[in-house]
């Protein structure tokens, strides 16, 4: 069931793969990997990392709310049937929020790694998942910030991702700040916030403002600038991300995400629902 049947461009698909690979490479063996809800990109990256250089990582899976060693194949909302029976520990959210998160974030071990997806990001790497427009009468009410207010104010290092690098996402001023950014040039450190998009990787620079540190292959500075709503800094040591290796792509396409669910995150809402219907019909045995 090829993605070419949707209006999703092969170039964008390639960029998504590049994002997953870049995320996976940021993971160190032994990290504590926090999965989000319906966040296929980071989950694909976690599984890829576990398959390759980071087999000792533990995942915290909200699909089942479990601690999980090992890997699994992404599913359309059925992950709990893979996680629950194989989990080492079952948790509730008081245990997570009053024990596990503070112990790891503030206690310092193991390293907490999580990729969060915000609706807006400002130049200091602060984020918004609450509303577009005025809070009291929003133009668009967003689902909510979940644990981002808690994690972003505790973390020493914080990862965001966005599969659609646009001026709507990268804004000079947030409509609401629900995720803390770099705390300022004195309090924070370089790379406090790292943002992965489909075009590039940005990280907090010496002043605290985001600067582009890596561009994905076949992306230009102009394309990044014209899709960013604030003036961008560029790292002196700007690099191009190495593309996925053949082995990495094979793992991704064969073991981790054969259905290409990671691309769902890059579609707009209408196209995503159409694609979901297609995938579900396909799973049910119909022709795609």
């Amino acid at each position, binding site marked *: 069931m090829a993605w070419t049947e949707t209006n999703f461009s092969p170039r964008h698909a390639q960029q998504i793969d590049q994002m997953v690979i870049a995320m996976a490479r940021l993971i160190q063996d032994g990290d504590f990997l926090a999965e989000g809800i319906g966040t296929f990109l980071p989950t694909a990256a976690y599984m890829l990392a576990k398959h390759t250089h980071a087999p000792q990582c533990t995942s915290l899976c909200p699909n089942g709310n479990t601690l999980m060693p090992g890997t699994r194949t992404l599913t359309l909302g059925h992950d709990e049937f893979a996680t629950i029976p194989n989990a080492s520990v079952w948790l509730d959210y008081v245990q997570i929020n009053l024990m596990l998160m503070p112990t790891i974030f503030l206690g310092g071990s193991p390293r907490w790694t999580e990729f969060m997806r915000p609706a807006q990001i400002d130049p200091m790497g602060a984020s918004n998942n609450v509303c577009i427009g005025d809070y009291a009468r929003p133009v668009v009410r967003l689902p909510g910030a979940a644990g981002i207010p808690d994690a972003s104010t505790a973390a020493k290092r914080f990862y965001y991702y966005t599969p659609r690098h646009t001026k709507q996402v990268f804004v000079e001023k947030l409509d609401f700040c629900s995720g*803390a950014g770099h705390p300022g040039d004195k309090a924070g450190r370089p790379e406090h916030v790292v943002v992965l998009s489909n075009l590039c990787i940005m990280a907090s620079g010496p002043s605290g403002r985001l600067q582009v540190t890596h561009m994905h292959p076949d992306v230009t500075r102009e394309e990044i600038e014209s899709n960013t709503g604030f003036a961008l800094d560029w790292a002196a040591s700007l690099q191009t991300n190495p593309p996925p290796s053949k082995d990495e792509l094979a793992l991704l396409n064969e073991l981790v995400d054969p259905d290409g669910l990671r691309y769902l995150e890059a579609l707009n809402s209408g196209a995503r629902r159409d694609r979901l219907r297609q995938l579900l019909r396909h799973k049910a045995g119909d022709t795609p």
Partner: protein
Amino acid sequence: MDKRTDMQTAIALVQDGDRVALGGMTLYRRPVAAALALAARPKRDLEVVTFTGGIETDLLIGAGCVSTLRSCYTGLEIVGFAPHYTQAAHNGSITLVEETEYTLSYALQAASMRVPFLPMLGSLARTDMLQVRPDLKRFKCPITAEDLIAVPSLALDVAIIHVTAADSAGNCNMQGQLALDPYLPTVAKLTIVTAEQIVDTEELMAMRGGIQIPGMFVSHVVPAKDGSLPTSCFPTNKLDLSGILDYADSCKSPEAWQQWLTVATEAYQ
């Protein structure tokens, strides 16, 4: 003591204006049948408390039952925004209490401990959260003098939880995502459990995870096979994502929405 009753009898005990917590998380083990029963009466002016809201919360908003919603996320995961929630927020027709994972967990833990608040590190002030939550009060630590935030205790009128299995005394087994469910019955005046199946206590104890909610905190047990559909209930039912898509599509017009509500409500009776 046999606490079994039917859905109508149990739901009739919920009062207009009650603060009602809904168990489960986003699209997993949600009390959908109970939410439809609340909508059918209909109950009005509810304050819904849910760690993360999904279809059960959105349908209650769509049916006009909700005046206030406390959650840190309400949406349909990969299917997208929760339509009625999004619309009601835009219209200003419901009050949203902006929670984070920590604030809601702290508030329920404080209620469980019967203390008026729990202290949270002051760093949350680096976001705009405190501007929309004036009840999260900044204060000086009486021991270290550092800036802290007092998260007020949150007691409940009603907790409604769908569980994998229960016995007639109200002991409950839940598998997988426990969300905040084990704490809800300890802070609620009334706890209604809807259960995928009713089993003997011994069978319950032998299930994976055993008993997570002791029966002494449960007021009523409602047999409700498939009572979480289209959301999942491990290990009995998988998430029916087509059902969630149908729900989202139905919200595009008032007629389709009324039809969805009628069909769904009838399906549960």
